[in-house]
């Protein structure tokens, strides 16, 4: 597909050597010869295998844990419970002062989602670890659970996470992230039409071909080398340092080669417990998620609900937009408070709307903790917004692409979260898309520019 080069011709550089030229990836020679070393390609003599005992309940109090039979199982070297973890309650974003610490490395007294790690078993073989894990006896008192965000926000709903004290993340702005711009009710008052719609999505699993995991080797000098497929090397190192109460200088992380991540490998889940196992046994430790664990245990993209109310004029201008967004964090924060916050800035879309009101909630439920995935906090929002835009265009009988030209932000426009628009180029992208997709729009839209106002 040949794209026009007439846009921004005054700032376009034609002497570029790399742009537009094919370049081989630097890691491809290793990939095609099978030489690329993924973490699981490291094998050490005497390496132990770690398997987790996981909660079969969505929400339960732990009355007692009996590991005696598991410890007697042939091949078992060590069984770990919450009391073995130096700093058991953590949260990954504490590194950027987003607390409180709300998640346990190994469950202590309570489980809050089905699949939560309770006991770690280290054994000579994967099979022995698996068999011994099945012999751990956990006595649970099952508690009422909540799976729906709106149910979770109602008074009297089961409390998911005591570290928060309520079923939503408490921002410095209160129970939700808020954007207030103009007077949204006045905007609705002047609108020719008002359209309120609700959109929702399910959790989505990244399903990388290489499952989450790490291999840890104790070095002779009290240091530990951790081979990992984390996507967040220094986040993982620093959080491991906190959880293990071990200076970062004792931890050597080797990574950078990830067999598919898509955001699914940014949580700090396998490394601290594997390093602890290596420390307490003096042996190398391998902790790799099975395919089932990857699908059921690893954080998915959050389920979201987005309620959008728009006021629109017959000439195509959106004059007011009110959005309430809900992000299902599951039982623990991980990256979801940040995802919900991103949504707050994003929901006006790439459109200039004079009156905007946005609330986004990060809600706790007894579901699998969600976290990062490709554009988390905005991707589902974009789906909702653009479906809404098509519906609005249909409502006033306007071509959906022309409707977007009318509302597209242009350089100099003030966005609802008080960032002035610069370098937008949205008008020009839509003009080229109109040509490339053979979806013609009226000449006045083809004459528009991102630089100047007026059509």
């Amino acid at each position, binding site marked *: 597909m040949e794209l026009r080069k007439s846009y921004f011709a005054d700032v376009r550089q034609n002497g570029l050597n790399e742009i537009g030229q*094919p370049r*081989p*990836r630097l*890691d*491809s*020679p*290793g*990939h*095609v*010869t*099978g*030489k*690329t*070393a*993924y973490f*699981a*390609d490291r*094998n050490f003599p005497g390496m132990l295998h770690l398997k987790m005992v996981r909660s079969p309940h969505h929400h339960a109090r732990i009355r007692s844990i009996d590991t005696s039979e598991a410890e007697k199982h042939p091949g078992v070297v060590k069984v770990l419970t919450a009391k073995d973890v130096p700093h058991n309650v953590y949260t990954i974003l504490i590194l950027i002062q987003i607390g409180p610490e709300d998640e346990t490395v190994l469950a202590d007294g309570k489980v809050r989602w089905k699949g939560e790690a309770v006991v770690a078993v280290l054994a000579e073989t994967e099979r022995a670890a698996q068999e011994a894990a099945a012999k751990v006896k956990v006595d649970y008192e099952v508690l009422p659970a909540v799976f729906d965000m709106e149910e979770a926000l109602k008074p009297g709903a089961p409390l998911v996470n005591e570290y928060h004290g309520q079923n939503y993340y408490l921002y410095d702005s209160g129970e939700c992230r808020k954007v207030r711009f103009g007077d949204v009710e006045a905007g609705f008052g002047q609108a020719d039409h008002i359209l309120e719609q609700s959109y929702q999505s399910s959790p989505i699993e*990244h*399903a*990388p*071909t*290489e*499952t989450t995991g790490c291999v840890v080797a104790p070095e002779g000098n009290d240091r530990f080398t951790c081979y990992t497929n984390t996507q967040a090397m220094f986040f993982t190192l620093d959080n491991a340092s906190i959880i293990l109460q071990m200076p970062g200088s004792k931890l050597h992380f080797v990574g950078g*080669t*990830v*067999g*598919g*991540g*898509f955001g699914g490998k940014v949580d700090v889940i396998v490394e601290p417990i594997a390093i602890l196992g290596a420390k307490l046994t003096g042996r190398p430790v391998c902790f790799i998620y*099975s*395919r089932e664990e990857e699908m059921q245990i690893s954080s998915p993209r959050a389920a979201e609900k987005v309620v959008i109310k728009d006021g629109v004029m017959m000439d195509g201008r959106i004059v007011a937009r009110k959005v309430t967004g809900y992000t299902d964090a599951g039982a623990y924060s991980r990256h979801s408070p940040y995802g919900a916050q991103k949504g707050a800035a994003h929901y006006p879309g790439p459109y200039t709307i004079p009156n905007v009101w946005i609330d986004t909630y990060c809600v706790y439920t007894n579901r699998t903790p969600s976290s990062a995935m490709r554009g988390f906090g905005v991707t589902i929002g974009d789906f909702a917004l653009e479906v809404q835009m098509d519906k609005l265009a249909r409502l006033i009988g306007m071509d959906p692409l022309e409707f977007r030209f009318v509302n597209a932000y242009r350089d100099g426009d003030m966005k609802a979260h008080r960032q002035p628009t610069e370098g937008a180029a949205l008008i020009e992208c839509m003009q080229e898309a109109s040509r490339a997709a053979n979806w013609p729009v009226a000449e006045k839209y083809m004459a528009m520019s991102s630089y100047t106002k007026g059509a």
Partner: protein
Amino acid sequence: MAKVPVQFTLNGSEKAEFVDSGTTLLHALRDKIGDTSPKGGCHQGTCGACSVIIDGELRLSCLTLAETCNGADIRTTSGLAEAGVLHPLQRAFLDAFATQCGFCTPGMIMAAKVLLDHTANPSREEVVEALSGNICRCTGYEPIIQAVLTAARANSQNAA
């Protein structure tokens, strides 16, 4: 646990090992023999990352017991280049940007090799069918299909 002897040819070299009965060929190759080019993505025969060639046929090494491979001729992606010169399939994957994370690549190349060994000039549909047991989660299927078609053309030009 009683060990069983296994002996086979891997990329032209004789290999012999003692393994636990029930050990998969994938584990034997990776953990005992040290050929880590076959990857374990699912260990249940659905992703194709562990694909190897046994006596000329495409096999899932995660579902193949090592002890059934006695006397077999086993080929993996790590043995495909000869004297440092890449096989046309490897060359084509490199040139066509057909790798992203690379985890599925060794299995993809094995599946493609078996196709080209049997069908010198496959159609696009035949390539798609041959790769249908191999999952690329980076969604790079189109460049992979193009790489296999390119390699097939390179092969037939060399043969002509």
